[in-house]
């Protein structure tokens, strides 16, 4: 099994954190943002996990879920729902917001983009009595969401208003050694600056899509 990862790609945080947290043994190879790892995909993607049976996983969330799955933590309705929400709703907003912060210096507008998804997360966490999203213990959902939000929420000048439940949860997940180590490895203590090269190569226009015609 082999994990291909590129420098300064924010999606690397969730995969590295899952790897460390589950303790799965896996070779890691650094690739450039342009390197084509998956033979059938036109656009270069990373992170990518080469499975023992020779198949490629090019979805970061599926990689994380796989690592938890082989460590005995199966997907549930609750983890599935958070992962689907992260991929369809949170991730596009995060990417757009990162572009505004890192490339355009528009912090105010970047925070506005995050308002709705963070409000939803705040409401959901506020209703729960458990310290984590789906249970008493950390799950793949916590790691995936925490990693997606890390570059933005770890920046003290990123002002998204009062979010007591989100802040409490964000600190609890961030206290895990696996999460800290993954964030440091990708961001190198430089915050969103470390993501600049990646963001320049991945335009945020994809995130401002019209609603699905099939819905």
């Amino acid at each position, binding site marked *: 099994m082999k994990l291909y990862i590129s420098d300064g790609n924010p999606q690397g945080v969730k995969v590295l954190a899952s790897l460390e947290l589950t303790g799965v043994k896996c070779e890691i190879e650094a690739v450039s943002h342009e390197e084509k790892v998956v033979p059938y995909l036109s656009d270069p993607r990373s992170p990518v996990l080469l499975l023992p049976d020779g198949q490629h996983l090019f*979805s970061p969330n*599926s990689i994380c879920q796989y690592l938890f799955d*082989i460590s005995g933590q199966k997907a549930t309705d609750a983890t599935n729902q958070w*992962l689907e929400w992260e991929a*369809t709703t949170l991730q596009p907003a995060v990417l757009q917001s990162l572009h505004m912060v890192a490339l355009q210096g528009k912090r105010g507008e970047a925070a506005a983009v995050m308002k709705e998804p963070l409000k939803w997360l705040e409401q959901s966490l506020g209703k729960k009595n458990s310290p984590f999203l789906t249970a008493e213990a950390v799950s793949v959902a916590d790691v995936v969401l925490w990693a997606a939000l890390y570059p933005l929420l770890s920046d003290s000048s990123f002002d998204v208003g009062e979010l007591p439940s989100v802040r409490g949860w964000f600190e609890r997940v961030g206290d895990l050694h696996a999460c800290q180590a993954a964030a440091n490895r990708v961001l190198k203590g430089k915050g969103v600056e470390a993501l600049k090269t990646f963001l320049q190569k991945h335009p945020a226009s994809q995130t401002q899509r019209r*609603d699905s*015609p099939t*819905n």
Partner: protein
Amino acid sequence: MALRELNSLERFLGLKKPNKYSTQGGKKVPVLQNNNGPALIGLVTIASHLVHEAQRPELLGDSAEQRAVVQQWLEHRVTRLDNSSKEEVKVILKDLNQYLEDKVYLAGNDFTLADILMYYGIHHIVVELAVQEKERYLNITRWFDHIQHYPGVRHHLPPVVVLRNRVYPSGHH
């Protein structure tokens, strides 16, 4: 649209009592009202739940590797296919065609939920393909025809005619 898909999926799975659905937000994300617990939100989440309800877990993959591959294509459906512009559709078709070159189904040799939801999601695109495009995306056309003839899958969607003599030329399989 997503609700019709879920109704068709319920019928495919042979679920006796139909569920109650609503939608949420501008993107009309499906919501399943659950009597025993909180509502479930999202097409992939609800579809996976229905598969468990019908006790057909093999449709989500019967090994960790296969489960991950199924999950990946389900995500691909709702993140890429559902939001794609005309330009992006070309890339999605090209890549999917390449991927399917040596496969019967999306997860290899076994029919899974990924095939059902990709078929529902890509139907409106395949319907519009000209004959030459169907030839260019030969592997997609072959896979698509296979799924639309899979017992109990098609339901709410009209069949798409593919040119069998072109789709299965000698020397290809």
